[in-house]
């Protein structure tokens, strides 16, 4: 009886100590859940506070990875991209397995895409591709997004094509590439016929007026030469004709660029607001 009592007390004490340890771990898990719940209710600033609290009291660093990853996600949602990348890299240091490392790197890639540092994103994707072949499709997908943000729509279409031949993103990229105007063509035709580039981009009024001005100043300049008024001819040709001629080429280039910007921005607006697939 006596030895049985001691046994009970011993077991109870052992259980108490073990559970005390579990209890501390459990408190931290609770804290993590609290931080996540704040994140889910879009209170990102407070979520970071709680995640930092978790990381501070987590002396064994059991939650170091999820806490820092959560902080990074919060900063990403708040559009604070450099901070997000800082915390993704911090989370990577505490990652326990390959999957976790991959997840943080993907976080950096998506953040780089969002902050339009597409060169860095593609570099990271290339590095990851050497490491593993498992996620090739996912990496191609984000490479496609990086190309979109870098205004390389045909390269993006190729990436999406390698995943799925009928991917809606591939079709979108191909359409944008097809719709875009050639800036070089607009410039070149305007060199030969003032206003032609403007016609190509659909800016008819501007094209007609450019043609008119160039015709007028050209006529006056030539006429002055015929009438032997060299000074007037030089003045008109230099200060008026040349000015409007160069302006005409500039305009052809500008209009083509503006139209292209409109086309690509429309696609980007669609991607941001109406696209249902995964976004960075």
């Amino acid at each position, binding site marked *: 009886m006596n030895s*049985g009592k001691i046994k009970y007390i011993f077991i109870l004490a052992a*259980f108490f100590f073990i559970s005390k340890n579990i209890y501390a771990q459990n408190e931290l898990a*609770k804290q993590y859940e609290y931080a996540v719940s704040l994140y889910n209710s879009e209170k990102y600033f407070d979520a970071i506070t709680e995640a930092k609290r978790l990381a501070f009291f987590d002396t064994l660093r059991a939650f170091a990875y999820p806490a820092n990853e959560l902080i990074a996600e919060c900063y990403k949602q708040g559009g604070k991209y450099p901070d997000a990348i800082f915390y993704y890299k911090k989370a990577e240091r505490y990652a326990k397995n390959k999957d976790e490392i991959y997840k943080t790197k993907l976080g950096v890639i998506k953040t780089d895409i969002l902050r339009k540092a597409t060169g860095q994103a593609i570099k990271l994707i290339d590095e990851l591709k050497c490491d593993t072949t498992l996620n090739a499709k996912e990496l191609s997908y984000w490479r496609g997004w990086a190309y979109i943000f870098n205004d390389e729509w045909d390269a993006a279409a190729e990436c999406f094509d390698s995943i799925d031949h009928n991917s809606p993103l591939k079709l979108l990229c191909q359409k944008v590439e097809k719709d875009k105007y050639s800036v070089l063509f607009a410039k070149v035709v305007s060199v030969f016929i003032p206003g032609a580039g403007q016609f190509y981009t659909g800016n008819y009024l501007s094209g007609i007026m450019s043609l008119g001005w160039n015709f007028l100043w050209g006529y006056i300049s030539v006429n002055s030469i015929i009438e032997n008024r060299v000074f007037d001819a030089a003045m008109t040709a230099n200060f008026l004709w040349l000015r409007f001629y160069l302006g005409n080429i500039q305009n052809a280039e500008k209009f083509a660029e503006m139209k292209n910007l409109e086309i690509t921005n429309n696609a980007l607006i669609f991607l941001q607001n109406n696209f249902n697939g995964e976004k960075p």
Partner: protein
Amino acid sequence: MKKIFLLAVIILCGEIFAQDASAPKSLLTQRNVKLFADNLFCQRDFLRSIAEYENYLKYCNDDTVKFKIALSYSYMQKYSEAAAKFKLIDKTSNYYQDAYYEYYKNEFLDGNYEVFKTFFTKDTVTQFSDTGGIKKLSYASLLMQDDKINISEKDFLSAFNSEEQPYAGKFYLEKTNPGYKKPLKAALLSAIVPGLGKIYAGELGDGIFSFTLWGLSEYLAVSNIKHKHWARALIFSGTSALFYFSSIYGSAAQAQIYNAKVDFNFNVDFKSFLSSVNYFLPKEPDFCK
């Protein structure tokens, strides 16, 4: 005994599996809140550390924490809030002397120079007896204001020690003789020779171009009048008149731009000098060694 054992197990398990979406209380004890806040403070995450410290102050009165809240505001360059918080620190506190200095420093940084005016009353000497740094700061505040300085150079320099005097003297001289360009003089010079006022106001290139443009259109106007090209004569007379009066106006404007630059450069230099000597005050205590 078995019953007690089972009961204990149930209670412990109950504690383990109790879950809800709020911060666990064990992390929010008085001690833990302060520990976490200190950590945030040293990470320069001041807005969060202030929130935690304020939370802590709900439970107990702590002058160190109050001082650190004020310091957090100061580090975040929210000087008026910082000054208000430093002012609240009690005379009996260990941090009173530090808070007293920090209060004046933050008022100075906030541009609230009014607070220093009280030091220039009759009993200045007694007031300044134990606050040499603040005496220097209040004399420095005179140079930061737009009003003219009523104190002689000798009086001004007497506030500073021999190491600081050369700098203080240089800034005093710059403030009292700022070397402004007079807008009226610039305008008059340009009225005599278009563009001359711009050269006086420090823009040689603009002066030359003003003169050239005016001269060219004046020449074209005169030559067209001679040749009786009346339409052209009218156009060039108009532009030459516009250039003439514009260069008068522009010279006056340029003089004021020059003066604004003088003021701006003085302020930048003087502020960086003051910050390099920590506003003559002892450095604030370092809590994050």
